[in-house]
């Protein structure tokens, strides 16, 4: 080997060594932060879910708080978990609270069908599930866990935000009753006054990313819960206003293929919407709740006298 080649080769090894040190340091900083997060006591606990049997559980995000009136669906319980939980967090909660004979309706906004929302960012996820849940995720979805969890979530800018903000901005939102959110001076009046013009939210439609594997993951999970707990799990197309079919056709079709749907896609008019692209007003809520009641009766999950 001539001296030039030898120099080149030793340079190459030197360069690779330095790059390896560089990467190790970079990853090391991340891991250090992660350790800080782990040793930090959690301020929030996962929400306590109601236990029981033979119930009608309606699971979703804030859309179910605004869009479902439990008084119109006898015996129903609405469980709203907001986006920080992610679909996986929500499904884990579903598994924990499901009791024999329960009829569960998942009413997730389309945005939840985005594979990125399966397990949302680490900082949000930390507070909503326990270490055991992490382990379950790795067991349930090893490939997903490796690619999306380790990389998407551990190497995460929100890790820093979480440490700096002390987790406050990631407060999850669990409600079991009518909306309490304040939106301006008198939100309830606006909410109940169906003639009030709908103010189009800035981002009134959500273009969700599509991945068939995401649906398969959810389907596999809910089928396992159905077998394990003796429950029936259905899905519902969410109550969204215009434009969502055009922008999310693949998602809508994939939901139809993969889940037991209780309704067909519906384009909700603006006069039934409240303050968001996925929030109904009182009139919308009434119509939506009646639709669900009708479906429950038709399928024998509610008796006529209920």
């Amino acid at each position, binding site marked *: 080997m001539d001296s030039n080649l030898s120099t080149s*080769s030793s*340079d190459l090894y030197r*360069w690779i060594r330095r790059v390896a040190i*560089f990467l190790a340091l970079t990853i090391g900083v*991340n891991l250090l932060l992660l350790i800080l997060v782990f040793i930090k006591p959690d301020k929030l606990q996962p929400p306590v879910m109601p236990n029981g049997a033979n119930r009608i559980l309606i699971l979703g995000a804030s859309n179910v708080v605004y869009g479902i009136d439990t008084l119109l669906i006898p015996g129903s319980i609405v469980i709203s978990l907001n986006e920080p939980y992610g679909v996986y967090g929500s499904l884990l909660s579903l598994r924990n609270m499901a009791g024999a004979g329960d009829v569960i309706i998942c009413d997730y906004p389309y945005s939840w069908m985005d594979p*990125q929302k399966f397990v949302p960012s680490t900082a949000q996820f930390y507070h909503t599930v326990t270490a055991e849940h992490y382990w379950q995720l790795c067991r349930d979805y090893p490939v997903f866990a490796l690619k999306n969890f380790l*990389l998407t979530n551990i190497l995460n*800018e929100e890790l820093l935000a979480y440490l700096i903000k002390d987790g406050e901005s990631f407060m999850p939102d669990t409600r079991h009753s009518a909306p309490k959110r304040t939106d301006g001076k008198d939100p309830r009046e606006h909410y109940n006054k169906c003639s009030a013009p709908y103010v189009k939210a800035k981002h009134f439609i959500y273009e969700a990313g599509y991945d068939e594997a995401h649906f398969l993951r959810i389907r596999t999970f809910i089928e396992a819960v159905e077998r394990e707990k003796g429950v029936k799990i259905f899905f519902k197309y969410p109550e969204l206003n215009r434009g969502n079919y055009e922008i999310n056709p693949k998602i809508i079709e994939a939901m139809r293929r993969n889940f037991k749907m209780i309704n067909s896609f519906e384009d909700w008019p603006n006069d039934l919407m409240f303050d968001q692209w996925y929030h109904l007003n009182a009139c919308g809520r009434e119509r939506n709740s009646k639709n669900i009641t009708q479906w429950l009766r038709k399928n024998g999950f509610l008796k006529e006298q209920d």
Partner: protein
Amino acid sequence: MLFDSLDFFIFLPIVFLLYWFVFDKKLIWQNALILLASYVFYGWWDWRFLLLLILSTLIDFSFGLWIESSIRWRKALLWFSIVNNLGILAVFKYYNFFAANFESAMSSMGWQVHPYFLHIILPVGISFYTFHGMSYVFDIYRKVIKPERNFINYAVFVSFFPLLVAGPIERAHHLLPQVIRPRRFDYRQAVDGLKLMLWGLFKKVIIADALAIFVKDIFGNYNQQSGSVLALGAVYFAFQIYCDFSGYSDIAIGTAKLFGMELLTNFKFPYFSRDIAEFWRRWHISLSSWFRDYVYIPLGGSKGGKWQSLRNIWIIFLLSGFWHGANWTFMAWGAIHASMYIPLFLLGQNRKHVGEVVAEYRALPTARELWGMLTTFAVVCLAWVFFRAPTIGAAIGYLSRMFSRDLFSIPSSCRLGILYIIPLLVVDWICRRDERKTIFEKLPFTMLRFAIYVILAFVIINKLFSTHGQQFIYFQF
């Protein structure tokens, strides 16, 4: 495959290790590996795009050989090659645009025609690799270079993965000799390459992607924004596209260095230009010099009298606009730049700032230089509005609202974007004399530099893997 994707971060080390450790015995093996890697890189989007790339490569390779061996038919062969390349571009990039305009022109005269529209996706980077091929054939015709007789070597020149989809647009006489010359690993070059990649990623992932959110919001709802917010939107887009594209170029140049190759410089701090002529010597240099060498000069350049020169200027600026896409907005963008360039040309001021940077031997610019920079930047921003807007009408609507009474009010929203721009300007200002060095190389201590690079990498990696990135803007061209 995107430079800012996990796929690329796995792909690059594999190719690098194979290149220097397994295929390093023979140059042709290394080139074959690069070619294969380039096709994998490109086919990652859609393997069908590869067929067009290979076809285009084969055509230009063959024409290169034919032009060299022919005396009588040289010119005809050159034209045939140009028609082929432009034909590919015309079909895949411009056909629907022409068809739609033909339809509306006919309908405005009362004739209803129903042209056939193609339902095809624009192949990524088509404008870049066809221009590579054309420069090769032109250079052979002009006897600047000899044709390459080894197809693999030629294909590497056209398809070298760092520059394949968004440039810099290379010249055969610059890159081909590097492809056919044995390469040795150069420690300094590889270190420089990584630093450039890091800085490019920072510009793209941290600055451009952050500004993209503001830009999307402002341009998407321009009817509801005040004049000052719209002005801010134009400025943000100017920096978004700069960081996006120059970031891509830095990553491409840096990646090429890892394989022992040097690519052309594409950006030299364009927003410090004191007039529009200087801007065009600093912005997308590989494209503007391509048009200068292969269109402007063959048309006679500035040698054939005032009117001919003016015609040639209009041609290259409009072509530059049209090169970016099949939309009148790009033409308008080119036309604005031409209209700003022509007065300088007529006054003989278009070569006033050649070969030196602003405040070359001073820390700060003079008032005159500052005024020049600000006015040039303002004009560039106005033109960017046309570039970014979906239609000419939307661009005019945007500008009409922008030049309203509240233009000089304090922007009510989207102010945070400025925080991304100021540090970039400071860094660029300090480094303006040497476009290939980053500010951090000027720091005194090795450990300090190393620590800064670690922090930079940390920020990039965390941002990269935790949010939805934006695709590089220039991929669509």
